[in-house]
């Protein structure tokens, strides 16, 4: 007895459709077991704003480790003594190392990621990234996300654009940026 997809899709497309069905069912099984079930394409509504559950104090370890890991060689991110001298000469606003902006962006998006990134099939783009206040070792970051748009892409996925906001412990905005990703649908 032929399985139903043979008669439904015809012979030529059978192989690729079958491959996709098998692949999707394997992923769906793992996906159901390993990830949250409230953060699929269908779950996002345009205009919704979320406050993400965790905050994070950016330690010197986080900031300097990532800065060196990605080979950013700007002393302002890891030479406290230089920054103190620059500050005394009024060449810097603060007399200590500044957290590299890429770290701030990654931690704020990271804090949102269990909600806005766990079902990502592929990250597509980022835009309008601004760093609007200093982040120092010891600054605590909180993450908020607004859903700007969503668009159907495929049977199994859709494209969502988010606006991420990062604020510090005093609720000052330190980062804002838009991010677009291809996100899995729950019903496939």
């Amino acid at each position, binding site marked *: 007895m032929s399985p139903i997809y043979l008669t439904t899709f015809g012979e030529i497309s059978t192989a690729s459709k079958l491959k996709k069905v098998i692949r999707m069912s*394997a992923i769906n099984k793992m996906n159901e077991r*390993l990830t949250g079930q409230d953060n699929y394409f269908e779950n996002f509504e345009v205009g919704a704003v979320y406050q993400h559950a965790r905050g994070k104090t950016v330690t010197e370890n986080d900031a300097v*480790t*990532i800065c060196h890991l990605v080979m*950013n060689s700007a002393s302002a991110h890891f030479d406290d003594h230089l920054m103190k001298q620059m500050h005394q000469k009024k060449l810097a606003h603060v007399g200590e190392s500044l957290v590299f902006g890429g770290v701030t962006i990654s931690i704020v998006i*990271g804090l949102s*990621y269990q909600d806005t990134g766990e079902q990502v099939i592929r990250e597509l783009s980022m835009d309008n990234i601004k760093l609007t206040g200093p982040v120092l070792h010891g600054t605590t970051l909180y993450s908020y996300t607004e859903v700007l748009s969503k668009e159907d892409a495929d049977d199994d996925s859709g494209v969502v654009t988010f606006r991420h906001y990062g604020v510090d412990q005093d609720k000052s905005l330190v980062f804002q*940026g838009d991010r677009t990703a291809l996100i899995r649908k729950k019903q496939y």
Partner: protein
Amino acid sequence: MNDQANTKLDFLEKAVLWDKGNTIDAFDDGRVFYHHWGRSINSGDNSLFSALTQMYNPLYLNKEYAKAEGHPGCVVAPLLVFNTVLGMTVEDLSLRGPFVGIKDCKFLSPVYESDTLTCRSAVLNKRYSESKKGAAIVTWKTEGFNQSNELVIEFVRSNFLVM
């Protein structure tokens, strides 16, 4: 004792600063910089970055999940690709002043563990500051490539350079 100390510190007087980076006058329109080093992203880099920044998607942290989704192994977190390419451009472009913004960042192709990233940037624009003499906002387009010379990321960055 004092003489000894003075002898030992002679090098401080003799030393000439072996400075790094470029100043505003280096950034002529269209000039292209091929940035230093290159970076192979190994699995430790990806795991450390993804775990440290809480980038919780199993694609970056669970090899079996990534393979079930059709990838050869863990996908490198796109923000690590972004940070690494940005990091390698800093010495040539932006040692002399703070970040202003990033636009039009596109993740064009997935990066996998053990891929090697290299990058280059072109000067798009230089605008001298009206309020701060000698300072300028410089804008560059940066492109990052993998070992097959495939474009994996591009973005446009501006910094406020003070000299």
